[in-house]
């Protein structure tokens, strides 16, 4: 392992490598700070440009953007009260209160250090856990893979804003759209309607460009959320938050565990872990109950540690099993697949240099971001005052040109446009987009494994239930479903009882 890390460090320490990681973490941090634009949008926009680049260094660039963006999200939350990224939403509740009281340096300093504290151990955990999980993953058959994908999808649906049916509808729709193209087993055209371009199916990058970049900018334009001015906010230099961290050490540890664990579970991601960590700590801190929500430093520590702890957690299933936990991991897997690297358990044996580059680059980027944020703290108000009228047009044009580059034909541009409309319609009908994207990504893996499972099975579909590991995954899926149906019913009954009593 050490040799692999040293090798990846050697690649990273080339002029290009240093340039990629220095610029990547800086760009990620700035874009993470800008409300509405997260690193994911920038990554998906840059994806098509990376086709001709060195894949190992592209991964370093992307991981640097991801670390920068995740860490930079707190800047908008604390200074403007508008989260830079969805994962920094919980930071607003207490962080912005400090700014209103005229002390933005304290929460910013705490957040900067907490981001670093969350990132490094989570990457180290990922480094060891991936190896173990990949060894185990090699032994899994198509039955286990199928059940794992089903479990992942059910978990994502479980978070469909309390609407299971619409979550399932999103999955069903994704499975149908993913069927267009070529049948993976027989190699024959399926639902291509005689169109040569449709035989490749709809590229996930085109769909993400439409559903994320194009739709997000459209909604930002429609909502006009950029009217708040940060130029009047004065931020002095970084102040070491030793006392705050010491006083909140149990909070820090608990939030780290929450973030890392939730990050590992598919589809839940940082927005869930940060809110959960915040709620947990608020509930546990009975002494300062009244301070929470009015400027309590624990309310900044909990979400910021959990937020970054999820980075390593999300890498584990994506690298070790080839099952991406969130849209960001999809982009990492897309970079690998563009350059012909088959992800999954074997990647640790066939392309260890790529995997170790991810870890090494993540740690170097975390150090760089810490450096940028401590030294550049007085410039934070300038970051969030970036001229959107320059930024958004450039992003949109790059995205549409990227859509053409991804598909190599005009269909890619059309798919991006249609994906944007589909995303808007899904928002209108309250159909969650996360299960859709996850199902679309997992569809090829799911189909291949279901069919292989049925092909190789002795007892037909029963093999999915009788094989122990597969059965465990299915049981977890059923448990998540039952919990999602039963828990709201119990809650409603309790509320009714309370109402009747009062």
């Amino acid at each position: 392992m050490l040799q692999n890390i040293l090798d990846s460090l050697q690649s990273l320490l080339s002029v290009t490598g240093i340039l990629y990681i220095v610029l990547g973490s800086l760009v990620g941090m700035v874009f993470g700070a800008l409300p509405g634009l997260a690193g994911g949008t920038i990554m998906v926009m840059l994806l098509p440009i990376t086709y001709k680049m060195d894949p190992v260094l592209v991964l370093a660039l992307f991981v640097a953007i991801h670390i920068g963006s995740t860490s930079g999200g707190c800047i908008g939350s604390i200074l403007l009260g508008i989260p830079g990224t969805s994962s920094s939403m919980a930071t607003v509740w207490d962080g912005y209160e400090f700014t209103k009281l005229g002390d933005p340096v304290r929460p910013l300093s705490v957040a900067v250090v907490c981001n670093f504290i969350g990132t490094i151990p989570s990457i180290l955990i990922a480094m060891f856990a991936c190896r173990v999980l990949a060894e185990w993953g090699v032994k899994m058959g198509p039955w286990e893979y199928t059940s794992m994908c089903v479990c992942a999808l059910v978990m994502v649906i479980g978070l469909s804003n309390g609407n299971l049916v619409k979550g399932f509808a999103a999955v069903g729709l994704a499975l149908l759209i993913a069927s267009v193209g070529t049948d993976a087993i027989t190699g024959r055209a399926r639902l291509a309607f005689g169109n040569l371009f449709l035989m490749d199916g709809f590229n996930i990058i085109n769909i993400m460009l439409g559903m994320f970049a194009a739709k997000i900018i459209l909604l930002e334009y429609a909502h006009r959320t950029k009217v708040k001015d940060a130029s009047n906010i004065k931020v002095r230099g970084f102040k070491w938050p030793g006392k705050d961290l010491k006083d909140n050490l149990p909070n820090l540890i608990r939030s780290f565990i929450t973030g890392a664990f939730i990050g590992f579970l598919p589809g839940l991601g940082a927005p869930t872990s940060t809110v959960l960590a915040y709620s947990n700590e608020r509930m546990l801190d009975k002494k300062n109950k009244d301070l929470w929500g009015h400027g309590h430093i624990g309310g900044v520590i909990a979400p910021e540690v959990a937020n970054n702890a999820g980075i390593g957690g999300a890498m584990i299933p994506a690298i070790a099993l080839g099952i991406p936990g969130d849209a960001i991991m999809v982009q990492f897997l897309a970079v690998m697949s563009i350059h012909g690297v088959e992800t999954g358990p074997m990647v640790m044996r066939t392309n260890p240099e790529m995997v170790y580059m991810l870890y090494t680059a993540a740690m170097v980027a975390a150090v760089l971001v810490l450096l940028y944020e401590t030294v550049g703290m007085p410039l934070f108000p300038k970051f969030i005052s970036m001229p959107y009228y320059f930024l958004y047009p450039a992003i949109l044009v790059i995205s549409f040109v990227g859509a053409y580059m991804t598909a190599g034909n005009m269909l890619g541009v059309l798919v991006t446009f249609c994906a944007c409309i589909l995303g808007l319609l899904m928002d209108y009908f309250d159909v969650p987009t996360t299960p859709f994207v996850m199902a679309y990504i997992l569809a090829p893996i799911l189909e291949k494994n279901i069919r292989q499972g049925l092909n190789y099975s002795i007892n037909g579909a029963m093999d999915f239930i009788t094989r122990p590991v597969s059965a465990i995954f299915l049981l977890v899926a059923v448990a998540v479903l039952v919990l999602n149906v039963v828990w709201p019913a119990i809650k409603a009954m309790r509320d009714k009882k309370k109402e009747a009593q009062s």
Partner: protein
Amino acid sequence: MKFINKDRVLSICLLAICAFFFVNIQNLKLSQYAGDPGPKMFPMIGIIVCVLCAVWLFIKPDTSEKKPVLTRAQLKSALVLLAIYGLIVLLMWLVGYTATVPIILFILCCLFSKATHPDISVKKMLLRSLIFTVIVSAALYLVYVVVLSTQLPKGILWK
């Protein structure tokens, strides 16, 4: 409760999509591999999931009042930008990359400038957008065409 509501419209849309896919998968041939359920199976799973959801949404629609995603004024802005997206697709197909990029950059920069600073003078807005368009178009041309030697759409009108 109104008979036609959002969930019921969604339900009908889902059923229509399912019907479309169901009709089209009927032409698919069976797999020649023994034990393989064939290419119909996967879209069929999607159809079953969607139909079940559509039926549920039709029978038990959510009737609670929810905040709309966009207000009427916001919808108008969204449609304007969506129309520009459509224009990007059309222009890229018709006149190709080289002509589309500066036109779209200019339009978008004017639009976003006006949205961010409603009181901006027309002269300032046009000048700012023009400078931005020239610089960004040149930079993108340099990156895509000169550095990356990418194949970009040339436009069917020039063929």
